[in-house]
Structures are given as C-alpha cells and as structure tokens.
C-alpha cells in the first residue's frame, strides 16, 4: 500500500507541477470568463445606443405605420430604433448622400420599402453591420406588422392590436417523474447532453494521459527498475489513481470557478433585464450520486484499457493505432444518445444502457432524462463493475509482460498468449 501511495504521489505531483497543467487549468476558466465578459460588454454597448435610420418609402403609404410600430425601448428608456428622416423618391444624388452618411457612421442604415411591397416584394435595409441581427429585430417586426395590417385594411378588416391577435401559443413540456411533474425538461435535456459530452471528453483525455504515462516509463526503460521494486499491479494502481486525482483537481478548480462565474453571470443578467434570468440548474442528489458511481466505474474501465495499450505499444504511433478499438465504444455511445433521446424506455435504450462499455455514458444520460426502474440501474451498474474488475485483472497480467517487451507491435493473438507468461 505504501508503494502504491508513493507511485500515486509521484504521478500526481509531477503532473500538477507541469506548465501544461497550470495553463490548461487556468486558461480554460479564464477564456470562459473572458468570453462571457466580452459578450456582455459587447451586447451592453450596442444595446445602449439607438439605431438611427432613414426610411425611404417608395410605396408612399407605409412610413407613418412603420414609425409608429417602432415602440421598443432600450434599457435607458431611449427608443431602440429611431426614424430620423423619411423620404419618398430619392434621386441618385440623395442615395449617394445616404450611403456616405451610413459609411461615416452618422446613420445606422436606411430602409427602402419598395412600391409593390404589399404584393410581396422584400424591403431592403442598407447598413454597415448586416450581422447585428438582434438590433434589426424591431425593424423587421415593425415593417411586417405595417404591411400585414395594411393588407387587412384593404380587405376591410380593421385590427387595432395586431400583435395580440397574432400572438403565438407556446407548448410547455413537463417531465413526469415518480414524485409528480416538474417543468425542467429543456434544462435536463441540456444537462444530459453536457454531462454525456463531458464524460466522453474526460474518459478519452485522462485515458490517453494514463496511456502516455505507461508508455513513457516503458520507452525510458525506467519500468524495469520500478518492477524490481514493486508488483506491476501496484504500479498500475498508483498510476491510474494518480492521473485520476489530477483530473479531479482540475475539475474541482473548474467547478468552483464555474460556480462563481454563473453566480456573477446570473446577477449580471438579472441586472440587465429583471425577471429574465434562468433559475440555476437543479440536480437531484440521487442523480448526482448515480452519476459519480457510474462515472468512476467507467473511468477505471477505460483507463485500465488505455494502460494496456500503453503497455503493449512501443512507440507513439503504435499507441495511436491501438487506441481505435477503445475509442470506438465511446464514439458509439455518442451515436446512441439519439436512440435513448427518442424513447429512453424502449427496448433498444434499455439494452444499450446495460452494455458495460456504453453504460458509463448512456445510463447517465438516461438518468438525466427519466428515472429508470431500480433493477435496471442495479443490473447496469453490476455488469459495469464486474466488467471493470475483469478488465483490471486482464490489464494487470498483460501489463506485467508488455512493459518488458520492446520492438515489433504484437498481434492480438500474441497479447492473449502473454496471459500465460505471468
């Protein structure tokens, strides 16, 4: 046990002290914070200024209605869009002048409403920033409403409040659980996908780290001294746990900064538009517990497989090729998310979430969507743990032989023969 601890400690400390670790740990949240701050700053800045436009109404009848429809206000009470001038039939010189004013920035843009707009021809908006879609939204609505109400008028229908008549009806989706219904289906769906992708990334990233660590000891030949001092299975255990602890440290740092960030982000959002802030994602404790258990079992399964690859390979290129069969079930898990999403209780979903190589991702995904029967969770977890133990046993034997074998990459048949050497 002391030797496992020594290996664990070395693995952890040498990794945590590397520049790569410090950078990736600090850089990811820093980039995230920077990104959020940037977006808030940009949207705030552009949302603070009124979009000043010139309205060129070739139809000659819509200008007053359009101006009247531009009711949206900014946070500071100023109108979002303001018509500073209305023209009917500008000549070439006036159009050139408009273009110059847009280019110089004195004018946000000019809107051309063609003569036969009522027959369905598009209006045109000329601006320097055609990508700023949010700011164009009020304009688009104002023109649309003006045209529609004009058409209705021509047919003898008078409507005072178009917006009310044409209001959409949304369908709220509620999730039925054992404890009644809740209304967080979209949130849980997003949560499910985020967790699945996070698991996928983590299993691969730390699996590859473990593999590289095994390979490094092999290529640097130090492994022969190591196994003359402790049992290979102790070395393997210390290594897998050490890399896992590095990942855990990184996640904790990220989780804390994410928590701080979301608190800040939410207060920021609610300051900008009161009442619009979404409530923080609510994760039931039992779900969290299941997630952790499935994740840990899956983590050990895959890092054991990855360390086998490190032990079999002699070079990075070997390792790259040998990785494919290990990555395959992970990639397939992502494919099968769709099957589970369509009906998380279908036979296919139930079976897929039982298969040990898929269950770390698929069962957790199912758990976020619904609460499967307890026997299914138990069976899936039982199979996963049994497989993990089997793989660890298998790995320990392959590892013992593989770390001392150099040169040609062995065939699968040869690898199975190694089981008998140790």
């Amino acid at each position: 046990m002391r030797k496992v601890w020594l290996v664990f400690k070395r693995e952890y400390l040498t990794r945590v002290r590397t520049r790569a670790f410090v950078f990736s740990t600090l850089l990811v949240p820093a980039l995230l914070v920077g990104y959020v701050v940037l977006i808030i700053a940009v949207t705030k800045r552009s949302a603070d200024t009124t979009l000043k436009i010139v309205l060129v109404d070739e139809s000659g009848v819509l200008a007053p209605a359009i101006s009247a429809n531009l009711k949206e206000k900014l946070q500071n009470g100023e109108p979002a869009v303001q018509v500073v001038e209305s023209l009917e039939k500008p000549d070439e010189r006036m159009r050139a002048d408009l273009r110059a004013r847009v280019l110089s920035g004195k004018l946000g843009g000019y809107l051309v409403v063609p003569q036969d707009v009522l027959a369905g021809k598009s209006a045109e908006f000329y601006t320097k920033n055609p990508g700023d879609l949010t700011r164009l939204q009020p304009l688009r609505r104002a023109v649309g409403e003006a045209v529609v109400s004009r058409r209705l008028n021509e047919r003898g229908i008078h409507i005072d409040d178009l917006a009310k008549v044409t209001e959409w009806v949304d369908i709220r989706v509620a999730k039925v659980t054992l404890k009644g219904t809740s209304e967080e289906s979209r949130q849980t769906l997003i949560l499910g996908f985020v967790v699945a992708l996070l698991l996928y990334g983590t299993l691969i990233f730390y699996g590859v780290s473990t593999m590289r660590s095994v390979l490094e000891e092999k290529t640097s030949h130090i492994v022969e001294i190591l196994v003359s001092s402790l049992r290979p299975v102790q070395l393997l255990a210390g290594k897998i746990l050490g890399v896992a602890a590095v990942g855990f440290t990184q996640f904790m740092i990220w989780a804390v900064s994410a928590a701080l960030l979301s608190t800040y982000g939410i207060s920021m959002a609610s300051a900008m538009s009161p009442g619009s802030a979404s409530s923080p994602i609510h994760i039931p404790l039992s779900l969290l517990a299941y997630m952790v258990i499935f994740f840990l079992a899956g983590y050990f399964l895959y890092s054991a497989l990855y360390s086998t690859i490190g032990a079999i390979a002699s070079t990075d290129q070997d390792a790259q090729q040998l990785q494919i069969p290990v990555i395959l079930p992970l990639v397939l898990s992502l494919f099968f998310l769709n099957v589970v999403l369509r009906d998380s209780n279908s036979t296919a979903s139930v079976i897929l979430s039982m298969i040990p190589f898929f269950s770390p991702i698929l069962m957790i995904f199912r758990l976020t969507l619904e609460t499967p029967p307890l026997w299914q969770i138990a069976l899936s977890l039982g199979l996963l743990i049994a497989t993990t133990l089997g793989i660890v046993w298998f790995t320990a034997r392959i590892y013992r032989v593989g770390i001392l074998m150099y040169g040609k990459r062995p065939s699968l048949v040869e690898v199975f023969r190694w089981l008998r050497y140790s």
Partner: protein
Amino acid sequence: MQSRQAGYFGQTTECTRRVGRTAAEFAMDAIIVDQITKRFDSFEAVSNLTFSIEQGAVFGLLGPNGAGKTTTLRMLLRILLPDQGSIRVLGEPASGNTQDRMGYLPEERGLYPKMQVRQVLAFLGALKGLTEAEAARRADEWLERLELSPWATKKVNDLSKGMQQKAQFIAAVLHRPPLLILDEPFAGLDPVNAALIKDIMLELRQQGSTIILSTHRMEQVEMMCDSICLIDQGRKVLDGELRAIKKSFGKNTVRIEFTGNDDFLNLPAVIANVNRHGAVVEAKLRPGADAQEILRAAVARGVEISRFELVEPPLNDIFIEKVGHA
C-alpha cells in the same frame, strides 16, 4: 564431452565448498537457484538452471548474447516468475519482501527524463523501503561522492550519458542492499569513472554485500569475480570458483613477449591456436605438447624473447572454447 565436463565442474564446486564450511554457513548462501525453467511460448529462455552464490562473493553470470542472462536476473529480482523450480534469496523464498533487499542496475538504462535527478533517486530509494527523507539524504551523499552534486536539481535529460549512468548506479545502491545485481556496470563509462564505480563495488563487498555481475568483458570478470556461472542457450555450461575452473584447464597456454618475426609460432604439431595482442602473444598448446619446442624454434630463428611464461588460459579463451559455436 561438453556436458560431461559441465557435470565435472559442478561436482568440483560442491566439493570445494563443503570443505571447511559449517552447515550454517552453507545455509547462508545469498542466492540458491534450484532447477528453474522459463518458457516464452515454445521458446525456452532458461532451462533447468541450478546455481548458488556464496554470501559476500562477487559472482559473474556470463554467456553469449541471448543466452538467457537477463531472463535469469529478472527471475532473481522477481520481475519474471519461473515456470518451474524455486529461488531462495538471503535465506527465504523470493518474494516482494526480498525485492527490497536487492539493488538492480539493468542493462537498458533509464530514469524519468523530466524529473530532477535528486527527486528520481529519492523516489526510487523510497520504493525500496527507505523513508523519503532518508532516501533524499542518502541521494545527496551519493551524488556528492560521484561528483554529481551540481546536477542534483537538474533534469535527468540534461545530464550526459555517463552522468546518467552514474545516477542510475546510485539508484541501485542507495538503500545499501545486501544483494546487488549489476548488468554491464561499466558500459559507457570512461576509465576514471569506471575505476570510481569499481572501487565502490569492492567497498560494498568489503561491507558484506553480495554482487552479481553480468558482463561480456572477460578481463573485468577475471579481475573482480570469485566465482562464475557460464550459460548458453538457457543451460548451464560451467560454474564454480573462478580459480578452480582456470586451474582445471591447467597451464596449457604460453604467454610470450618478443621482438622480431613471429614465424616461429608456425608449429601446428605443438600450438593449437594463437592469440596476438601486439607485443604479447598467447599460444594455446595441444594436449601433451612440450612448450620448450616453441622456445627452441624462436631461438633457432634468432627471435629475441623478453618473456616466456606457462599460464592458465585466460577466461576469454575458456568462454570461446565453451560457447563458441562456430
């Protein structure tokens, strides 16, 4: 012929050993290897190998490339487990426990390239059962002694090959093991550093350590080893005390130092083969031949002889005779 002689030497060893030694001493052999066999698929790397090593001895494990030396050493260290047979180390069956009392310098050298020299050594020492503080303290002492102190906090990668070699040697001796296994300890060292390592080996032996040396350099074996075991294709060819082995071959070699033409060595009836080392020539006599005939031939041709000595064959010749398959 070969197998008969192997058996013969095996017996000699047993006899010379038992003379003047009590049963207790005999039980304290540092290593007892009893009929071990190791197979990799159909290939038998080590076949039914038996030998023992007296405590405090310097023991040479010799053999041509691919003879099974490394596999044997790995089994002693319990890196590999024998398919058959048993190994006793320092009076108990080989186990994780005995590993801690052995130091190992493998032929393929290597330390963590990106770790500090001192940290690697402290880690390896701790793995052998020292406390981390004690391992670090001893690492400093040894680094000082091997003139590596300025490099203690450098990364292993920044060291020259020779320096890495010395650092690796420290890793083998740091925990002061009663049993030290060195595979080609002098490879890649300049004469000054080789002498430094040799002195330390002899000093450790003085302090009671048993040393197993595996090397292809026969002159080193002749200088340092008390007893040897020669293996070929996984089987023992010869073992026993070095002096007894050489003696058994008899003084069948003439060492001649001379100036002039070496035509006089062309005596097929007397000389079986000749080894030329520049000014010195070693001529192996045919069984029953008279060495004086060589001297007479030299005088007759007017060659000036400065040295003419009847000696036991060098270990190099014994090695070639026993395992030279050509």
